[in-house]
């Protein structure tokens, strides 16, 4: 007998599986998958202004820094200002989805491609954002490689205010609508990477970015 059959056989024996309870179990399973019941969620004012404010506050609580600009074309200059203020390099890797922005006009040398170890600054968009916890939802694709938000020491993300949703449940629905199936990797990011493994003292920059900076586009 294969291990699979052995394991499932013992699970079935434990559940005293028979024809009748198997049918009931299948029905319950189909209902759970169809109904997608949501659990209790913290109450939230879901006006666009309140969502942006909550998202900003929650992001800052996770040690993320936040800048707000009027339109997407303002983002490169805002990013250049941030890099200058932080004394960080003016060259960066960006997700190919952002190739059309005028980076050189803002004095930045930006390469749209996948990330390499030597990249110090990574610029990304995001699929959407979650106001409840101050979280970015990143969906991997050829245009949005996952490692750009992971390998560099600084991660800068451009977030469109209209894509800030109240809850993670809303993000799943948006993904189902716009993408159909899930991409290879969905990464929810809430602030810089961190560890508390030595004396439970939180240190930023464990294996991923030391800092996360958001440029929220209001338009």
């Amino acid at each position, binding site marked *: 007998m294969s291990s699979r059959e052995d394991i499932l056989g013992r699970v079935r024996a434990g559940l005293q599986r028979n024809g009748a309870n198997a049918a009931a179990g299948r029905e*319950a399973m189909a209902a759970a998958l169809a109904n997608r019941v949501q659990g209790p969620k913290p109450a939230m004012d879901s006006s666009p202004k309140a969502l942006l404010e909550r998202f900003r506050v929650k992001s800052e609580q996770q040690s993320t820094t936040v800048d707000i600009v009027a339109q997407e074309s303002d983002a490169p200059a805002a990013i250049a200002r941030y890099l200058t203020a932080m004394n960080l390099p003016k060259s960066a890797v960006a997700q190919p989805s952002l190739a059309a922005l005028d980076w050189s006009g803002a004095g930045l040398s930006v390469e749209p491609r996948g990330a390499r170890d030597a990249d110090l600054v990574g610029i990304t968009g995001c699929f959407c954002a979650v106001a409840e916890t101050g979280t970015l939802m990143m969906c*991997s694709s050829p245009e949005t490689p996952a490692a750009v938000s992971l390998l560099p020491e600084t991660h800068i993300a451009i977030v469109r205010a209209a894509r800030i949703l109240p809850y993670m449940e809303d993000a799943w629905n948006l993904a189902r609508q716009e993408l159909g199936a899930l991409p290879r990797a969905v990464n929810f990011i*809430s602030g810089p990477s961190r560890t508390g493994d030595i004396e439970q003292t939180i240190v930023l920059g464990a294996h991923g970015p030391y800092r996360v900076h958001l440029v929220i586009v209001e338009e």
Partner: protein
Amino acid sequence: MHFKANASAKLADVVLQGNLKNAKGKFVTKRAEAIKDLDDFEGTRDAAVAIRNKVIDNLDLWLERFEQKALDTGAQVLWAKDGAEVCRLVTEIAKRHGVKKVTKSKSMLSEEAGLNQALEAAGIQPVETDLGEYILQVDNNEPPSHIIAPAVHKSLSDVADLFHKVHGTPRKTEIPALTREAREVLRGHFLSAEMGLSGGNFLVAETGSVALVTNEGNGRMVTTMPKVHVVITGIEKVIPTLEDLSTLMRILPRSATGQSISNYFSILTGVKRPEEHDGPEHLYFVLVDSGRADVVGGDFHAMLRCIRCGACMNHCPVYQTIGGHAYGWVYPGPMGSVLTPLYAGIENSIDLPHAATLCNQCGIVCPVKIPLPDLLRKLREKQTERGLRPLTERIGLRLWAWVAQRPTLYALGASLGARYLKWLAGESNRIRLLPTAPEWTLGRDFPAPQGKTFRELYAARRNATPRA
């Protein structure tokens, strides 16, 4: 597993006691703060219980459903009866893809299986990349003492000495500098390993995905950079939908580290798509039994709800006093005292169900409401049923039962006992050494009874107070 000897040694270990004292209460305070910003924490707990029950009450069906969806995404699904089979399957996968080095994010199941030793024996280098696990691996493969903070028993100075010795670098005394040093060492491994190995916090039946809750980013590294990704999880980890994942994520990080969400929360589905820059080309799920299937439907069924947050040990007075190593196996604290007998054999862990005060702190904080004290009590019953208790205890209980069934004899015995203890205490009212049970008075005095038994006092009171 010699729990009593281990626990005594840990109590006498001055350095460990200092480290435990330092760690004590930090997780407790953070959790208490973090659950406040959920308007309905209790409702969320109830929803989490319902989600977990939904699956484990029909686990065979959900496993088949998850397997089918995972296969549809291009992943491969393997099944392992025990740790030895986990080791065999993972080693085979590694050999098939010509793997020399494996980077690992935290997987308690690989600890259960002893996978690192098996990989090394096959000439494959396993590298632990969670900072805590890495610290333990370079310290002669010391086992973890906590399921989410594996090196919680070590102090800053322990780690400083260790890195100085192992890396051959100048001794650093700041935590950020030590963290940076580990980052630099491990970055090279992330980029050169051919295979990444992770556990799985949840398996999503709706999509055939694995969900990983991490903070450091190592979980993302090992599932993004190498060409092969192997997920090792217990068969009980399936949940129905992405919505259920969101509900569970409201309570898991809060219960574990006191965060409203972990820094990274990754939901991985299938392999690298055409034209993608990163991601593994091969994805394997190893679904592991190792005792779980036999728990289904029995007295300990509720234990399968466990989401491995560690809140029970963080709040346990016994765990806080002796640390995780004393428990002798992978899972410490109250959940470990239930899981170890179930997975490693009741007869191999006789002391663990007794390593609890049954104060129910664990039951109160458990996000999926596992009645841990009830399960510990049930394990004690099983020990008695199977005649596993020590001979002296069995004879003693029989003797007590015989006397207890004879009220006159019992009253006489109790009266003599109370007077003997009072005499033993003398003027001081405290007994320094109890000759019949010297262990009781080893670290404390025994308060002397007042000389009369409860029954004598009760009778006197009834006589003195006339009834209305």
